[in-house]
């Protein structure tokens, strides 16, 4: 029903769309910068002055 080249072109368009959607999703993902204190699980070696 379809020629090989037509199938190939359809596959190419499909893959391009997938890449586009994936790229858009990647661009939409937010990366939050989270400042977190080290050594907060207090113990003999932890550095801070209080709990």
């Amino acid at each position, binding site marked *: 029903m379809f020629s090989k080249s037509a199938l190939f072109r359809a596959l190419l368009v499909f893959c391009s769309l997938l890449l586009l959607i994936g790229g858009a*999703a990647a661009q*939409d*993902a*937010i*990366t*939050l*910068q*989270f*400042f*977190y*204190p*080290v*050594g*907060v*699980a*207090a*113990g*003999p*070696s*932890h*550095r*801070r*002055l*209080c*709990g």
Partner: protein
Amino acid sequence: MADFNATHDHIQVEPVFTGGYSENMARATAAILSGQPPDVAILLGIDIYSLIQTEGIIPLDDYIASEEGLDIDDFFDAFMANNIADDQVWSIPWQRSTPILYYNKDAFAEVGLDPDTPPATWEELVEFGKQLVVQDGDNVTRWGVEVPSSFWLFANFAIQAGQHIGSLGDEPCAVYLDTPEAIEALAFLRRLQDEGIMPDGAVAWGTAPADFIAGASAMIYHSTGSLSTLLANSPFEVGTGFMPGGSAGYGANVGGGNFYIMADIGQERQDAAWEFIRWMVRPEQIGQWGIDSGYVAPRAAAWEVDPLKSYAEEVPQASTAREQLPYAVKEFPATFGGQEIQVITTQAIEAVNTGELTPEEALAIAQERANDVLTQNGCEL
């Protein structure tokens, strides 16, 4: 955090480890002032006024009240005390704590004390401490008690003597270091040394748990955040109790870290930060962190579900700090320049611990220096 990232394609959290709490605050402040703030941070409750002063954080009331909100009444009152200013909620409790008394049950039994009954008053602390000291000639091989030279621990003694040395209300310009109650508290700490129960000189924060594990101190005051470490490493049975009461009874000030969302990062990032916080403080999640760390899970719902519910039944020491919360108040000092005032207070304690100054002298100097910090931050005293 890895679980959050694995289950949230649209939000990824990149942790930036910054040092201890004071370094974390310094770095966050520098980032805010340079116009490149982080999105979310865990900072102390006492940092609230400094962060508001720099316009670095946002109030969270709208998020709390939204459809994607949070039952803020589920969080223990003592752990919310530092998180509210100008009738607005500015942070969500995460890893919270109070100091508690840790004691060596084996040592108690060895000297004829009841291993299930820790000292309940200052006088009992002295009495028990004397019995627990072990000497080899002039050399003390086991101290009765160690209280690290820390503003955070001293604040509890002052509360137990009847005076919170910081403000209990929304008063970022109030510090009460030279009151009779504060002097009584510092004099009691000196007395522990004069009675030969506690080592002379300043006691470092990290020294006390190390000495406790090594059997070189029978009792220590320390954060409940040290519980997991002490239980895992002590070659004896570890008991926990409330900090003994003074002339005004039991008393504690809280501590620990809270989630703040930064200003000037845009609505979309703030929304994402809120989603992250809501996920982190789910009862199961925050309960697991309490087990792993020893910190007090700061919301009631966490104690009513597993894993914390079962853990608290198996490890009764885990509940001591939570049970002490009815006697707990705001973390000291909750003022402008709070971290500077903490350092000033610790220096006063060290001066008394080392015998350089009397409690009256040390606290008079500390009050004067604290007033200078407050004045420099715009307070009219």
